[in-house]
């Protein structure tokens, strides 16, 4: 028997009508009666499936259509055309039965009650989702233990740090044990330890509940830790859909050496590595292949007045860019 996918997206398209505003009084009064608009396509011909229990990274540069796609899957947006099915529901019909099985967590949104202790906020969640007492208490205590919230739950939300608030937020959003979970930049703005903690928790939740997770993140570490598979989109279309390994190979093939020199910006470092760019303030970033790292670093230290030197993985945007540029142009 072929198992039904948890998420199935077919030819999904979303276009927004953006008003075109002309300056001047006459134009703005005219706009009251006849609005000139321009169509902006956020998501175009999106097709993919996610199996039950899968964790998939949803990647792409800013404005690629990731958040728009997640909002459609969470039922907040109605598509212009195409279909999507999540757990057998059409999300934008917003049936209560669907909303009880789904959660959308956005990194910079807060659904907890600002002036109330976290525990009280959880009680509100209980009455919103109609959770039986026993199930609620068990889940809550487990979440508190897993996310190490014990010392925080008696404090009002406004007294928590950003990271603590995010942990409480995630616990609150999962109290109803959703079978499908949409995470939009869940770790944005958090420090490394907190990012790690949240990552581990999501993995744990996925393992225990068998929940399907679709996640966007700017932090490659999030994606590496959680997703076996990634979907890369740009301009609203899928460019890459496959195992993380393939993307990681790509990712591992180059490194960036960031060097800060004593002289302001006189020196040219174009001769090192494949390409070098001046970031200003005497800071240069140099692209090298993995095998060149040791050699180039050695030369830099020997030949230049280096104040500071770090070796970085390229940002995720660069990786994605490489992923699709290889597909479209001959290497």
């Amino acid at each position, binding site marked *: 028997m072929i198992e039904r996918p948890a998420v199935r997206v077919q030819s999904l398209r979303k276009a927004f009508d953006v008003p075109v505003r002309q*300056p001047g*009084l006459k134009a*703005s*009064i005219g706009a*009251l009666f006849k609005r000139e608009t321009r169509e902006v396509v956020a998501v175009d011909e999106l097709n993919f499936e996610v199996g039950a229990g899968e964790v998939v990274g949803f990647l792409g540069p800013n404005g690629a259509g990731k958040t728009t796609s997640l909002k459609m899957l969470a039922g907040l947006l109605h598509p212009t055309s195409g279909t999507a099915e999540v757990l057998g529901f059409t999300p934008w019909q917003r049936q209560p039965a669907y909303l009880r099985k789904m959660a959308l967590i956005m990194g910079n949104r807060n659904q907890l009650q600002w002036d109330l202790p976290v525990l009280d906020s959880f009680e509100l969640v209980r009455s919103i989702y109609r959770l039986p007492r026993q199930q609620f208490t068990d889940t809550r205590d487990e979440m508190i233990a897993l996310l190490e919230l014990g010392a925080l739950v008696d404090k009002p939300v406004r007294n928590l740090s950003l990271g603590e608030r995010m942990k409480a937020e995630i616990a609150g959003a999962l109290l109803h044990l959703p079978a499908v979970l949409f995470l939009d930049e869940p770790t944005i703005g958090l420090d490394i330890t907190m990012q790690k903690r949240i990552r581990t928790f999501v993995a744990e939740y996925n393992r225990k509940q068998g929940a399907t997770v679709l996640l966007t993140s700017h932090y490659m570490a999030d994606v590496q830790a959680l997703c076996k598979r990634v979907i890369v989109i740009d301009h609203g279309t899928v460019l890459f859909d496959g195992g993380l390994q393939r993307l990681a190979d790509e990712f591992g093939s180059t490194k960036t050496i960031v060097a800060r020199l004593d002289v302001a910006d006189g020196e040219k470092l174009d001769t090192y590595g494949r390409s070098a760019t001046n970031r200003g303030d005497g800071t240069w970033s140099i692209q090298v292949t993995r095998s060149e790292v040791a050699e180039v670093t050695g030369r830099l230290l020997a030949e230049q007045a280096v104040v500071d030197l770090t070796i970085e993985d390229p940002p995720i945007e660069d990786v994605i860019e490489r992923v699709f540029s290889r597909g479209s142009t001959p290497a």
Partner: protein
Amino acid sequence: MTRPSPGWRDPDRAGSLRLAALFFRVGAQNELQYRLNFVVQLLQSILGVAAGLVGLAVVFAHTNNLGGWSRPQLLVVMGIFLMMNGITQAFIQPSMNLLIADIQKGTLDFPLTKPVDAQVLVSVRSVDIWQAADSLIGLIIVIVGLVQQDVAVHLVDIVSFVLLMLMGTVTIYCFWLMLASTAFWLIKTDEMQELFQGLYRTGQYPVGIYPGWLRYGITFVVPLAFAITVPAEALTGRLEHLALVGAAGLTLALLVISRLLWRKGLQRYGGASS
């Protein structure tokens, strides 16, 4: 942190005033880009005035004078009430709201680090000129009232009226500055603004009709009597010379008191943030 320069004998005072004018012009230009807002604001003002006029009509359907004021004379009071409201909302309140927000968020450093008198700077930072639509309509209503009343208005009355309006504006400004300065001590002052707006409504009728305790309150605690009723008295042949002197005295006193309170608050702010 830079201390504000010591007040009244500031050599930069001329500079401060020039700066005030500049801020005002930039703010106004900014707003002028959104001329449609003026239409909306005018519409809202007209609606508000219409309700006020219906209210007056209901009152005068049952009587022909209120505490000795005839219907056209009450129109004059209402017109001045609107003029003052427009002035406050357009030129005083926006800067004061900004000031309160800055004090609460601890972001007042920007105006304090400029080489001009900080009080001038925080008082002119923001204008919302479309709110002045109320003033325009108010002026029209004052004129209608003056034409209808049977008291002759002389040049001297108009001069006193203009003087009193200027002093009234200053008193309301001082009151707002004091209100805003309380934000240095109290955490939430939004509701104090609600309080002022609520009390301001009492100004649409002459203070004389209110019972004694309230009359004192809106004369000396919230200085509405001198900002609205007294200018109206100038135009309706009621003004006593003593009131003119009183208005001048109150204005001066409030200028000094608000200045002191503001500086006291600044000291506290400096102590808390450094």
